[in-house]
């Protein structure tokens, strides 16, 4: 009894007018009935095209089959054979370009809502399961994981499940990486990230916070002084890019990293109940068109900004952000200034006063395959803003590569790692996630962490 509806079962959402005044989650998730109804749209294809597009190869038709039968805990067990952070992935994965892009139902109508189902199953488990996670007996082999983001957490969990003694070193005071400092509460509740991390701790992973590998200790010292057989580096891409335009050091200019970290990790949205402030004007320009730009814009709106602009130099078709994020941003009244490129920031008493932009048009395709934006001569105009948030991408932090020169890097700072094993040019040192790929997605980082865990196990298991 397949559900032949061409559309996904709708997921309840907070009303846009209401949600721009709070930081609570926008999407409310499926009820068990809705989940079963949606799961019945799955054709249970034998060749599983959806799985081939999942970076961690979640057995998708298998878990959906359990959902159809209402066996949600069974579904959870199936998902977690491949994915250690299902509640996170169900929310922030770009399913439209991964699993759902290959769904046969998508040829005519909408694909099966795999992401929503994954989210439902994970949430159901967190709410209802009393089952205690138990650590596997240890094999006594020590492995260090550097960085508590999606790559590091995945690598740590996979190796802990195999019995390795894992210590995860986190530079900040809280593990989670971009899941806690970057992605806002309204898209990914922090309580949920905390719960997922607690689960990983229960597997026996020891988390050592406030340790900046490359400063507090080097990769080499982890091996020689602390006795770690292998080291996995998942330190991410945390260094903000700036545009190098006039006025960028004025007061009122933030990197998206600073802005989001203040609001998310330090909970500045609750200032002065929390001690970390964030200062925001009435009119905010966010520069960039990716998910981080959407997160920044929607956060600014919730903090009370009257006008929030997305300033992006290409057109809507090229926006790198997920369609859903762009859709949500528009619903919330974010104003899109497309085909506009910032040229300088004007000041008044050393504060941002206006943003000068130039209009662009699309020319021939560039090396990325997208049409290159070309400035239209003498088309400069001024945008009346008092805050500018720069969200044009992040680079890997060089702290580790500078103190461990044997680890070879790309010219832009990314660590070079083997495509299959994730091993770097330094023996028994592995790397994965944004520090290798440059800023990408949570799930790709998790896939890299998984790959490294497998390779580390292959190498160490016969020790």
């Amino acid at each position, binding site marked *: 009894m397949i559900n032949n509806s061409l559309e996904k079962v709708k997921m309840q959402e907070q009303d846009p007018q209401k949600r721009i005044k709070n930081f609570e989650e926008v999407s409310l998730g499926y009820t068990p009935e809705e989940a079963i109804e949606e799961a019945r749209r799955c054709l249970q294809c034998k060749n599983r095209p959806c799985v081939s597009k999942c970076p961690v190869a979640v057995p998708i038709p298998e878990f959906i089959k359990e959902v159809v039968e209402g066996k949600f805990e069974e579904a959870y067990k199936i998902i977690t054979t491949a994915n250690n952070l299902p509640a996170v992935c169900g929310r922030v994965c770009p399913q439209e370009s991964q699993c759902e892009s290959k769904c046969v139902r998508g040829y005519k109508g909408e694909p099966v809502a795999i992401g929503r189902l994954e989210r439902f199953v994970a949430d159901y488990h967190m709410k209802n399961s009393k089952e205690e996670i138990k650590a596997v007996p240890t094999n006594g082999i020590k492995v260090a994981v550097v960085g508590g983001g999606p790559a590091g957490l995945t690598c740590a969990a996979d190796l802990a499940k195999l019995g390795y003694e894992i210590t995860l070193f986190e*530079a*900040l*005071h809280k593990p989670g990486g971009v899941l806690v*400092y970057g992605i806002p509460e309204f898209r990914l509740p922090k309580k949920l990230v905390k719960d997922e991390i607690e689960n990983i701790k229960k597997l026996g992973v020891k988390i050592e*916070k*406030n*340790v*900046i590998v490359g*400063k*507090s*200790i080097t990769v080499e010292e982890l091996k020689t002084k602390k006795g770690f057989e292998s080291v996995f580096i998942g330190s991410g891409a*945390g*260094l*903000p890019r*700036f545009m*190098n335009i006039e006025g*960028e*050091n004025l*007061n009122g200019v*933030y*990197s998206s*990293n*600073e802005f989001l*970290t*203040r609001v998310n*990790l*330090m909970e500045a949205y609750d*200032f*002065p*109940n*929390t*001690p*970390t*402030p964030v*200062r925001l004007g009435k009119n905010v320009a966010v520069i960039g068109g990716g998910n981080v730009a959407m997160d920044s814009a929607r956060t600014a709106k919730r903090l009370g900004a009257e006008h929030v602009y997305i300033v992006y130099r290409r057109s809507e078709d090229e926006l790198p952000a997920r369609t859903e994020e762009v859709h949500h941003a528009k619903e919330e009244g974010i104003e899109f200034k497309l085909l506009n490129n910032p040229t300088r920031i004007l000041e008044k008493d*050393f504060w941002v006063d206006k943003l000068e932009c130039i209009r662009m048009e699309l020319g021939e395709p560039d090396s990325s395959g997208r049409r290159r934006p070309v400035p239209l001569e003498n088309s400069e105009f001024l945008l009346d803003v008092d805050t500018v948030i720069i969200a044009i991408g992040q680079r890997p*932090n060089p*702290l580790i590569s500078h103190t461990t020169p044997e680890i070879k890097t790309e010219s832009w700072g990314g660590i070079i790692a083997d495509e299959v094993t994730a091993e770097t040019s330094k023996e028994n040192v592995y790397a994965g996630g944004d520090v290798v790929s440059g800023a990408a997605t949570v799930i790709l980082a998790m896939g890299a962490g998984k790959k490294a865990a497998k390779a580390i196990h292959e190498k160490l298991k016969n020790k």
Partner: protein
Amino acid sequence: MYKILRKKIINESVEEMDILAPFVSEKCEPGQFIILRVDEKGERIPLTIADYDREEQSIKIVYQKVGHTTKLLGQKKAGEFIEDFAGPLGKEAPLNKAKRVIGVAGGVGAAPLYPQIKKLKAMGSQVDVIIGARNSEFIIFEEEFRKIADNLYFATDDGSKGKKGFVTDVLMELLEKGNEYDEAIAIGPVPMMRAVVGVTKKAEIATSVSLNPIMIDGTGMCGGCRVTIAGETKFACVDGPDFNGFDVDFEELINRQQHLKSEEKEIEEHHKCKIGLSGGYDD
């Protein structure tokens, strides 16, 4: 959690603590800093390392109780714990051997200056030091400097210790008297460092200054501590905190320090009634 091994009250607003922090003490060098949070809900603040003991695995910090977090820290006693203590961060100070050096400190700047002067002395340099403060009460680290400095001078606003006037007045006097220095290190409030650089630039004495503006992470993640050095944007947390004083755009730096001034006031007001009465701001 990080244990407060000892606490010393220096004067009504300045205190020092020795904190047990093995990961920091093992590798830290003069010029580097740490980031701390007092409790679970706290904000992250940077403090420059004032001294360290590798054997005891401890780090000395000196703080002036001027803001919300430093006041909260001041309520902690020896034997108690603070939530987070991360480091060492920043680059070590570029210290050169066997030269005649003048160290100039303003207020609590004397604390971070101390390990640099101590190391220079150990390297065989001749070191003179000028410490300036509001009045004699606010002169800190006198005993410590007394042990290592070849000459120690003071300047106070009210003349209660040393010369009545600024550290730059003492510095100019020394230079006029024919003292020659190969290098200067100035640590203190930004306007003071700017004034020192004004003097040393004329006298052609290479000068290092320590910048310590607002930081969240201390690892280059946020870029909140951007400064213009010789026309180029740098991050004080990873490229510094010590820079060539001649290259620093002081005007921009002073302007950037205004950024969150009104918010600082707001949180002071918000928590005023609770701090000191309850012992914690969130209960």
